[in-house]
């Protein structure tokens, strides 16, 4: 099983998903992020999904849950870099990623977290 690295920069945790993830890896990421939030006292999470070719209902639900879990640790989650084809497919699938914020790219996501967007 592949593990997704979590990088802390300032008070933000950065996650860049670069490979086609199996379900267990996504669940693992959720757990690793919860651990990292308690350990680092970060107040923001940026998840870059630029490289993700699809987001199906399971992955979408996990992203929503990561947002909900982060909030319990007083941190905001921003999903960045969604491909246009993924956005169209997600909408048709009926998934709205309620509760997580989105931004075009990591820079804009960071600005959103810092309140300067």
């Amino acid at each position, binding site marked *: 099983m592949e593990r997704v690295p979590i990088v802390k920069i300032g008070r933000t945790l950065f996650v860049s998903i670069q490979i086609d993830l199996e379900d267990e890896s996504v669940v693992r990421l959720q757990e690793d992020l919860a651990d990292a939030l308690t350990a680092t006292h970060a107040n923001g999470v940026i998840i870059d999904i630029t490289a993700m070719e699809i987001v199906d209902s399971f992955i979408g639900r996990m992203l929503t849950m990561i947002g909900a879990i982060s909030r319990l640790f007083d941190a905001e989650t921003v999903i960045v870099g969604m491909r246009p084809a993924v956005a169209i*497919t997600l909408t*048709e699938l009926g998934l709205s990623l309620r509760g997580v914020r989105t931004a075009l790219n990591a820079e804009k996501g960071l600005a959103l977290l810092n309140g300067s967007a």
Partner: protein
Amino acid sequence: MDELPIRSGDDVVRVRQHVRMAAADSGLSLVDQTKVVTAASELARNALVHGGGGTARVELVKADSGRKGVRIGFTDDGPGIADVGQALTEGWTTGDGLGLGLSGARRLVDEFELTSQPGSGTSVVVVKWSR
């Protein structure tokens, strides 16, 4: 026609990658490729989680009109579905999801055929055509 086993989360990823290649080969647009790969991901996961594992068959197809497409058949030997109509209802779930898997997959493809009987597994065949 390629036959792929679905016995682990890893296999679900392999099915996605295989369908992606087949969809590109049959000339589907990037959006349509993404839709059929997403549908395949939902159905492969269903076969694994609810069917206890199964098989995906991926093939390129051609209509009489000359249109090309990709057809994927999923079969499992799981407990089957007692009420197919209910299973296809958006939001209906066995309890561990959002209930978007089957109904969502159906929306993302052009043809969708589900056959199932309690005790004799489930078969789903989907087709996505190039425009």
